[in-house]
């Protein structure tokens, strides 16, 4: 069974469209994340949720809205897609909340969603 799974793996869409990426983890972890990896492989944290509560919200356009229906799922919805949104988006999870000093746990990553905006 895949520990952290995200769908779709590839997403090609036109500018201005709205799209969603789904993520599920079956590890029983409390914390889930979204990272964006640009064409130069730079990984930037976007959001972090702990038990469905938003704990990290980096400087991300408000066109990006995460939603966590339960602690095993963290979806990413993107409105009005722009060319610059093209990237690989990774979902990840970890056992404890990294906020508050529980920073000693590794993050498990999904396989990524390659988003291409044309």
């Amino acid at each position, binding site marked *: 069974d895949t520990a952290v799974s995200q769908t779709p793996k590839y997403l090609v869409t036109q500018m201005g469209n709205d799209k969603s990426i789904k993520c599920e983890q079956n590890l029983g972890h409390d914390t889930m994340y979204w990272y964006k990896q640009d064409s130069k492989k730079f990984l*930037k944290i976007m959001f972090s949720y702990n038990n469905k509560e938003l704990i990290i919200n980096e400087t991300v356009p408000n066109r990006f809205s995460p939603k966590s229906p339960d602690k095993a799922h963290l979806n990413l919805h993107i409105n009005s897609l722009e060319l610059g949104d093209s990237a690989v988006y990774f979902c990840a999870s970890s056992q404890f909340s990294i906020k508050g000093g529980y920073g000693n*746990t590794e993050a498990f990553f*999904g396989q990524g969603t390659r988003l291409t905006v044309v």
Partner: protein
Amino acid sequence: AQSVTQLDSQVPVFEEAPVELRCNYSSSVSVYLFWYVQYPNQGLQLLLKYLSGSTLVKGINGFEAEFNKSQTSFHLRKPSVHISDTAEYFCAVSRDDMRFGAGTRLTVKP
């Protein structure tokens, strides 16, 4: 806040040669350190982690890293690389959140 600097963006080496990928971190408090590997078109996989204790950490695939507090470094080493080690390697630091370095592209040539 903590940050990570990977000193080399690309490291080409020949097969069976030793390799060192360098990582320096910056933090005003104690942190936890990780190395991840990303093979082409795949997600990130944990190689090893330093939480506390022995400063020499052994990971998967023959990799090891040494935590040096005085130099704020966490360099990754392997004594003899294989073609299959060609990948992107990321150093990460974790305290309040997990931050990644810019990555080092390791290319192993025959």
